[in-house]
């Protein structure tokens, strides 16, 4: 193999107050390979990327690009060297158009002015040819779903890249189809001799696309492996630093007994433009899944149920009581809780500490004047930091200093702490590592067996089939069917979703 080293990191160390995020890490990326960084949440993957691309200053070590030492001081600087990056927390401008986002800082010019026509044209071409997405590129970015935003960020990076492309969890909010498109692009770039760093917590994707894996644990480099030569259980064991028992990954057999008592039901509940009216019931202690592609209305239905979006028709009944005019506050008072899909926008409050982020939901439930005493706050925060294994030196740390997966855990903690009767989980394990995912799945089953109803939304059908008692399948913002435990299987759900014309993502 002509595996000339393209990019090399040597002895990289980086500390934050109270955490050694990287210690003496080596890493090398060859020309024409896709290389994965693997490790638990908080292992230091994103930090390595950020140090390499000049977001953070490194403490020690050096980087070499084609043998020459480099030390970019900013992402723009790194881009000039040919390293382009999609960071885990996408940093696009929400209120600029899609085209502007793709070309920001390098707008095509004509006679000294921005050539808008050319820009829109080229943006459209990049998106449709490379990633097979057809959208109106003149609309502002925030009018699109997280998945599309993710794809736009990728399109931008791919278009800029020359040499090295870094993708930090680019697939966390993508569906199978988009992932397929992305992989096609990556394969093509790889054949052109580019080096690609790819971070993901999905083992399937790692094995499908990568050539090599570098494992990090607690900021230390454990080793570099050829993907084909390492088994999944070996890989995970190395990541978590202990044996990965088969059983911890096994399907959790659903042994809960059925309860007949209905907790929530809806007749004809819907909102024009978001979700067509549908019926549903959810019993106590039942796990109900909402399956469907991105944009099929699964998130929209959850939002209507929780009162974020007002239903414009239909009846919602909670505990035999009809509810009109649902608002998030009313929903929380009724025992609902909603772990939203987009943690950056809808979840975390950056300025606040981990503790404050955890107790926020419980505090709104108790109300403005029943302030939770400080020691109770600390107890609650401590409890969930331990339960969910949130990696932080201190609960008073700002939440945006946590790694992506750990932020997700904080949001989950916020909603568990409200002691809900209905837990709506919209992609609750997004960005969470393999080990924690299994733990959280166990926790969800546990909660259900205590009588808590759960509405579960996930793009991972495997996870759905393993957990859910029943699944509602959505397509084109309509309910197209319902499967109970005996009828449920991944392929069956896939078939239902795929029947008829595919959904257009706009």
């Amino acid at each position, binding site marked *: 193999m002509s595996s000339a080293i393209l990019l090399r990191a040597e002895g990289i160390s980086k500390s934050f107050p109270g955490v050694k995020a990287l210690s003496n890490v080596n890493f090398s990326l060859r020309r024409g390979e896709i290389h994965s960084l693997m490790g638990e949440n908080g292992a230091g993957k994103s930090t390595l990327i950020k140090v390499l691309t000049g977001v953070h200053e490194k403490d020690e070590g050096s980087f070499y690009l084609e043998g020459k030492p480099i030390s970019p001081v900013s992402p723009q600087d790194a881009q000039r060297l040919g390293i382009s990056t999609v960071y885990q927390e996408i940093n696009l401008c929400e209120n600029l158009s899609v085209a502007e986002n793709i070309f920001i800082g390098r707008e095509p010019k004509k006679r000294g002015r921005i050539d808008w026509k050319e820009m829109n044209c080229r943006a459209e071409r990049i998106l449709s040819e490379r990633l097979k997405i057809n959208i109106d590129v003149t609309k502002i970015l925030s009018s699109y779903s997280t998945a599309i935003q993710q794809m736009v960020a990728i399109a931008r990076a791919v278009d800029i890249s020359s040499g090295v492309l870094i993708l930090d969890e680019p697939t966390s909010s993508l569906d199978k189809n988009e992932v397929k498109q992305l992989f096609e692009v990556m394969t093509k770039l790889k054949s052109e001799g580019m080096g690609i760093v790819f971070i993901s917590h999905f083992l399937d994707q790692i094995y499908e696309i990568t050539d090599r894996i570098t494992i990090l644990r607690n900021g230390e480099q454990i080793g570099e492996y050829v993907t084909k030569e390492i088994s999944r259980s070996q890989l995970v064991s190395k990541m978590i630093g202990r044996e990965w028992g088969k059983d911890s990954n096994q399907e959790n057999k659903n042994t809960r007994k059925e309860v007949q008592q209905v907790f929530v039901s809806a007749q004809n509940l819907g909102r024009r433009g978001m979700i067509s009216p549908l019926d549903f019931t959810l019993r106590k202690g039942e796990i109900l899944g909402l399956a469907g592609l991105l944009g099929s209305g699964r998130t929209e239905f959850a939002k209507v149920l929780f009162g974020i979006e007002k239903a414009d028709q239909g009846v919602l009944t909670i505990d035999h009581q009809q509810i009109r005019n649902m608002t*998030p*506050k009313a929903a929380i008072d009724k025992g609902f809780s909603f772990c939203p899909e987009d943690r950056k926008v*809808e*979840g*975390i*409050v950056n300025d*606040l500490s981990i503790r404050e982020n955890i107790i926020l*939901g419980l*505090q*709104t439930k108790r109300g403005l004047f029943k302030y939770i005493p400080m020691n109770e706050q600390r107890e609650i925060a401590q409890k969930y930091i331990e339960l969910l294994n949130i990696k932080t030196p201190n609960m008073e740390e700002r939440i945006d200093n946590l790694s992506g997966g750990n932020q997700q855990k904080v949001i989950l903690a916020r909603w568990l702490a409200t002691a809900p009767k209905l837990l709506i989980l919209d992609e609750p394990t997004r960005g969470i590592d393999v080990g924690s995912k299994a733990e959280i799945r166990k926790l969800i089953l546990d909660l259900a067996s205590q009588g808590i109803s759960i509405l579960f939304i996930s793009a991972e059908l495997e996870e759905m089939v393993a957990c859910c008692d029943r699944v509602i399948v959505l397509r084109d913002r309509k309910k197209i069917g319902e499967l109970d435990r005996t009828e449920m299987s991944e392929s069956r759900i896939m078939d239902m979703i795929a029947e008829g014309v595919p959904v257009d993502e706009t």
Partner: protein
Amino acid sequence: MKHNFYKITQMKIFWPLVALAVLLLLNLFLLPGFFSIQIKDGHLFGSVIDILNRVMPLLIISLGMTMVIAKEGIDISVGSVLAISGALAAAMMEHTSVWVALLAAVGVGIICGLWNGVLVSVFEIQPMVATLILLTVGRGIAQLITGGQILSIDNSVYQYLGSGFLLGLPFPIFIGAAIFLIMMYLKKRTAMGLFLESIGNNMTASKFAGIQPKKMIILVYTICGVCAAIAGIIVSANVSSADANNAGLWIELDAILAVVIGGTSMRGGRYFLGGTIVGAFFIQTLSTTIYSVGINPQIVMVVKAIVVILVCLFQSQEFRKLFLKFTKKKVSFS
């Protein structure tokens, strides 16, 4: 030791305190007798006491403004509300009892605050524009109330609020302290602080967490309105008259400055009541100093502006870094 010092310099209140200390030191040298305090008839007198007394209207308004800014808003109508409340109290006292007049003055503050709050939260008008309406219309209303004249006030209870003494100290100090304590209580013993900071930082996530932003927004603008009204009472009581044209003119700017100097970001989020107090003291001391060292009145505003710019620059971490780099270079050259 070094680490501890670093920690202290990182505290939001550190730089405003330094600025205030520098200013006070300057006064110590420039104005002999600045810190001396005399006792006359059991009342304390002196420049410091004077500053303490004079700053109160600004301080109270700044406290209200802090909460508005915490939620990423702004209220530029406070000066006009101050004028309305003073005018209304003065006008009503001619016919009714002082207590009714006081209630009416505070009531009008509530109404003005509600008005602003509803415009911002329900109609989602940008705070600057929404409060601009009351800024301009408010003075007109105040003039209508006073009939275009300066109303004089002749009521000893009312005057006491602005110029009386309690325990040797000017009474407004106690009003200011009470308001500060109430706001600290709201921040530390209720969820108000948490909710405001959450809304100011991430409105969408706050909605998802069940906070009702509209209610909170109306609440903070109302609090700010009440603060402005109370300041109006103090101002008019202090000079025993209500002047619709000039009372509280430009006070919104000083208040915003006090908040910013105190470390609260205009972008919303974390807010610092203690910092605001220091900020307000700084501005008042600066004005007093400038006047008493006899700087030409025509350039007073310029001097004030320069000092404020310096303070703001030193609050910025980026600037401090640049400054350090620059001074270090100089040192190594010499």
